[in-house]
C-alpha cells in the first residue's frame, strides 16, 4: 500500500486557534492532560474525605469541613459519603485516568511515534476533547443539585440507581455525563485505530512500532467495541428513569416491576471488564518501552510482549462474569468465567518475564521515568497476583465486596496506571513542552509516593482479608471490624502522605511548563523512537519530511555501533550485531 503523506498545514496564529479550538493532536493531548490532572485532584480530595470518615468517624473534615457540610458540623454525612465514593470511582476512571493515558498520551504519542503529521481525523479529535469537556461539565453540574449527585456506587447497579433508589436528577445526569464521555472515547478510538493502521511511516511494520503504540492501539480496539455496550446499558437505565420503561425495575414498590436488575450487571460488566484493560494497556506499553530505553538494551521478547498484550485483550472480553459470582449465575456459566479468567495468567506471566528480561544484564539509568516504570513492575505484580484470589469462585464468596477487592483494583488500576502516567509525563515532558521537569523533585516525588502508596493498598487488602466490607460509612458499628480501626487509621495517614507528595508533582509540572527558561535538547533521553528525531517541543507539523523507518524502536546497546551513540534512531539502517 502506497503511503499517503499528510499535508503540512499553516500553523495557527491566534490564541483561540492555538490553544482552545485546536486541531493539532499535540495541543489536544495537552488539553486532555490538564483536564485529567484537574479531575485527579478532585477525585483525590474525595478520597481524602472518604478516608477521613473511615479513620475518624464523627470528626469534622479538616480545613474545609465546616464550609462544605455546615449542617452536620463539618462531619461528612452518610448520604454525602455515598456520593463521595460513587464520584471518586467515576472521576478517577473516566475523568482522570482515561483522559491522561488515553486522551493525552495516546493523542500525543501515536502520530509522533509512527511518523505521521497528525491524527487522521483532526476535527474528530477536537470534538472528542470537547465532548469530554461537556461530559465533565454535566457531572460538575450534577454535584450542585439539591438532592445531590449520583450516590449508587460507580457501578450504579439498579434498582438502587433507578428513580426508586436515587430520586432526583443527579443519577440521570451521571448517566448522561458518562454517555457523552462514551461518545468522546469512541471518537478517539476511531481516530487511533485508523491512524495506526493507515498512517504508519514507510518501513514501520506493525512489529517495528514502539510497544507504547501497541498498548494504545489495543486500548482503542477495546474502546471501540465495548464502550458502546456501556452506552446501551446507560441508555436503558436513562429510559427507566425518564421514560417509564421497566428494564431493571423488579420487586420495587412503585411498579409491578418485571424487569431484571441483573441484566444491567451483565451489560455493565461486558463493558466493565474490558474497561479495566483499557485503563492498564497504555501503561503496559509505556513501561515496556521505558524499561528498554533506560536499561539501554532492546525490549526482551518484543514480539511475544505484543502478542501477549493482544491475547490478554482478546481474553478480557470473555471473563466479565467474575464480577458477578455472588449473583448466583448458573454453575456452568460461573465455572466458565473462572476458567477463562485464570487463563489470563499465562500471557501476563510471559510479558512479566519479558520485562525482567529487559532489565536483566542491562546498564540501568535510574531516571525518574525509569523509577516509576520499575514501580509499575512492582505494584502491578502485587495487584495482578491478588486478582487470583478473586478469580476463584469459592474464595470470592468471602472476599467479594470487601476491601480486598478495593486493594486489588487500586493496585492494578490506580497504582500501576498512576505510576505509569507519571513515568510517561516525566518522559515526554521535554517533547511536549520544550523544557525538562526538575529531576531532583521528580525523584522526591517518586520516593514520597511509592511508600505511602503501598501502605494504603496493602493496608486495604489486609482489612479486606479480615472481612471488612466496602462502601461502609462507619465501620465501628460492627464488632468484627472494630479491631481494624488502627489499620484503617494507618491507611488514612498513608493516603494523606501520598496526597501531599503529589504537591511535589503539581508544583514541578506547573513550574516547568510556565517558568522554566532552559530549553530541552531534541533527545534528552538518548532514545531512537521517531519523536526524538524532531526538535523539543515538537513543531506543529511534527516532521519536516516523513521519516523512513529502517529498524526497530529498541535498538540500544548494539556493540557494533560506530556513531559514538549507544542507540540507533529508527530512521537508521540496522547495524548487524
Amino acid at each position, binding site marked *: 500500500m502506497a503511503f499517503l503523506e499528510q499535508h503540512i498545514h499553516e500553523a495557527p496564529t491566534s490564541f483561540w486557534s492555538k490553544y482552545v479550538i485546536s486541531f493539532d493532536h499535540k495541543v489536544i493531548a495537552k488539553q486532555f492532560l490538564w483536564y485529567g490532572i484537574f479531575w485527579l485532584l478532585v477525585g483525590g480530595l474525595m478520597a481524602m474525605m472518604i478516608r477521613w470518615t473511615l479513620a475518624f468517624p464523627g470528626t469534622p473534615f479538616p480545613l474545609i469541613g465546616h464550609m462544605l457540610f455546615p449542617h452536620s458540623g463539618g462531619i461528612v454525612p452518610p448520604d454525602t459519603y*455515598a456520593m463521595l465514593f460513587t464520584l471518586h470511582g467515576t472521576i478517577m476512571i473516566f475523568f482522570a485516568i482515561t483522559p491522561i493515558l488515553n486522551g493525552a498520551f495516546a493523542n500525543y504519542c501515536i502520530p509522533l511515534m509512527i511518523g505521521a503529521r497528525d491524527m487522521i481525523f483532526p476535527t474528530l479529535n477536537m470534538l472528542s476533547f470537547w465532548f469530554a469537556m461537556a461530559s465533565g461539565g454535566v457531572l460538575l453540574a450534577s454535584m450542585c443539585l439539591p438532592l445531590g449527585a449520583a450516590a449508587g456506587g460507580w457501578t450504579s447497579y439498579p434498582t438502587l440507581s433507578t428513580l426508586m433508589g436515587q430520586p432526583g436528577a443527579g443519577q440521570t445526569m451521571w448517566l448522561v455525563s458518562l454517555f457523552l464521555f462514551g461518545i468522546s472515547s469512541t471518537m478517539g478510538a476511531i481516530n487511533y485505530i485508523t491512524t495506526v493502521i493507515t498512517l504508519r511511516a514507510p518501513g514501520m511494520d506493525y512489529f517495528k512500532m514502539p510497544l507504547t503504540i501497541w498498548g494504545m492501539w489495543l486500548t482503542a480496539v477495546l474502546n471501540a467495541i465495548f464502550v458502546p455496550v456501556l452506552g446501551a446499558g446507560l441508555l436503558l437505565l436513562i429510559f427507566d428513569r425518564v421514560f417509564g420503561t421497566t428494564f431493571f425495575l423488579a420487586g420495587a414498590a412503585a411498579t409491578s416491576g418485571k424487569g431484571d*436488575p441483573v441484566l444491567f450487571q451483565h451489560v455493565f460488566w461486558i463493558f466493565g471488564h474490558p474497561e479495566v484493560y483499557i485503563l492498564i494497556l497504555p501503561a503496559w506499553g509505556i513501561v515496556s518501552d521505558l524499561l528498554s530505553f533506560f536499561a539501554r538494551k532492546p*525490549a526482551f521478547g518484543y514480539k511475544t510482549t505484543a502478542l501477549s498484550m493482544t491475547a490478554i485483550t482478546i481474553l478480557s472480553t470473555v471473563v466479565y462474569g467474575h464480577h458477578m459470582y455472588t449473583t448466583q449465575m448458573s454453575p456452568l456459566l460461573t465455572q466458565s468465567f473462572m476458567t477463562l479468567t485464570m487463563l489470563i495468567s499465562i500471557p501476563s506471566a510471559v510479558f512479566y518475564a519479558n520485562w525482567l528480561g529487559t532489565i536483566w544484564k542491562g546498564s540501568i539509568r535510574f531516571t525518574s521515568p525509569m523509577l516509576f516504570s520499575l514501580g509499575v513492575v512492582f505494584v502491578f505484580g502485587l495487584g495482578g497476583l491478588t486478582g487470583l484470589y478473586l478469580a476463584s469462585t469459592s474464595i470470592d464468596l468471602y472476599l*467479594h465486596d470487601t476491601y480486598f477487592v478495593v486493594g486489588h483494583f487500586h493496585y492494578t488500576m490506580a497504582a500501576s496506571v498512576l505510576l505509569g502516567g507519571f513515568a510517561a509525563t516525566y518522559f515526554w515532558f521535554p517533547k511536549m513542552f520544550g523544557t525538562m521537569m526538575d529531576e531532583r523533585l521528580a525523584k522526591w516525588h517518586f520516593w514520597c509516593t511509592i511508600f505511602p502508596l503501598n501502605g494504603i493498598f496493602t493496608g486495604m487488602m489486609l482489612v479486606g482479608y479480615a472481612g471488612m466490607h466496602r462502601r461502609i460509612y462507619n465501620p465501628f458499628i460492627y464488632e468484627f471490624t472494630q479491631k481494624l480501626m488502627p489499620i484503617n487509621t494507618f491507611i488514612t495517614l498513608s493516603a494523606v502522605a501520598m496526597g501531599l507528595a503529589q504537591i511535589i508533582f503539581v508544583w514541578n509540572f506547573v513550574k516547568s511548563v510556565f517558568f522554566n527558561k532552559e530549553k530541552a535538547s531534541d533527545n534528552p533521553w538518548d532514545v531512537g523512537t521517531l519523536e526524538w528525531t524532531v526538535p523539543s517541543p515538537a513543531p506543529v507539523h511534527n516532521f519536516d519530511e516523513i521519516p523512513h523507518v529502517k529498524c526497530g524502536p529498541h535498538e540500544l546497546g548494539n556493540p557494533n555501533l560506530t556513531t559514538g551513540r549507544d542507540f540507533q534512531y529508527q530512521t537508521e539502517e540496522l547495524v548487524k550485531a
Partner: protein
Amino acid sequence: MEALLLNVVGKLGPAMEAPLRLAVESMSFWERIQPPEDITTNGHLIMWLFNYTTWVNLFWFALVCIGLFGFSWFYSAKRHKKPLYTHGTDKQHYMITAGIGVLVFLSVDMVITKVSTNDMKNVFWQFPDQEPDIVRVQILAQQWMWNIRYAGADGEFNTGDDVVTNNDLRVPVGKKVLVELTAKDVIHAFYLPNARIKADAIPGRLAKIWFDTNKTGTYEIACAEMCGAHHYLMRGVMTVLTQEDYDRWKSETEKIAIATNDQESPDLRWGWKWGNF
C-alpha cells in the same frame, strides 16, 4: 495513634467507647488482621485455598522482586557498564519465557481452579433441601434491615403462624441452615463473615445459601452490596444456640406468633411458598 483515636471517642459519645477501647487495646498486628472466627464446618475450605494461593503468590512475587531489585542493583549503569545486546529471541529465551508461563499456570491457576470447582460442586452448591433435619429460613433484605422468617408451627412458609424477626437470626449448632434470600427494594447481599460466605439478595429473584455451624455464640450479619446511604447500618445478629436452647426458643416464639400475629396485616405475608417465588 492512641491519642488520635481517643480524641474521636469524645466526639462519638459513650456508645462508641467500648468499640474504641477494643480497637485501641493492645492486640498484636497478626491477631488484628485475622479473619473473624470461623464457626462453620466448611469455611476452612475457603481459607485453605486462600492460604495456598498466598504461598504460591509469595513464591512467584518473590521471584519478581528478586529480578526487579536484584537486577536493579547488579545491573545499574554504575556497576554494569556494558548492556547485553539481545532481543530475547533466542530459542533458549522463548523456552524460559514459555516455561514460566506454563509453570505459573500449573502451580497457581490450575490448582485454584480445580480446588475451587470441587469445593463449589461438592459443598457450596450442595444445597441440603432434600435432607431431613435442616433449618429453613426465608430472609427478605430491605433498606436497611433484615426481615427473617421461620415457618412456624405448621411448617409452611407465608402462613399466619410464621415467626418473623428483624435482624435476629437464630439457629441451632450443628445443623445445616438453608436460607432463601431476596430483597424488597434494591440489591443487598447477605454476608456472614464468620461463615465466610455471602449471596446477593436481588429484588425479583430467589437466591439460596446454606451453611452449618459448629460453635455457639452471637455473630454478625452484614450487608455486602451497596444499598443506599444507610447501607452501613444493615447489621444483623446471628445467634447460634445449643439444640435445647434453640428448641425452647422455637416453641416459645411459635406460641407467641400464633397468639399475636396480626392476621389482617399485609406486612405479615412478605414471605413466599418455600422454593417457589
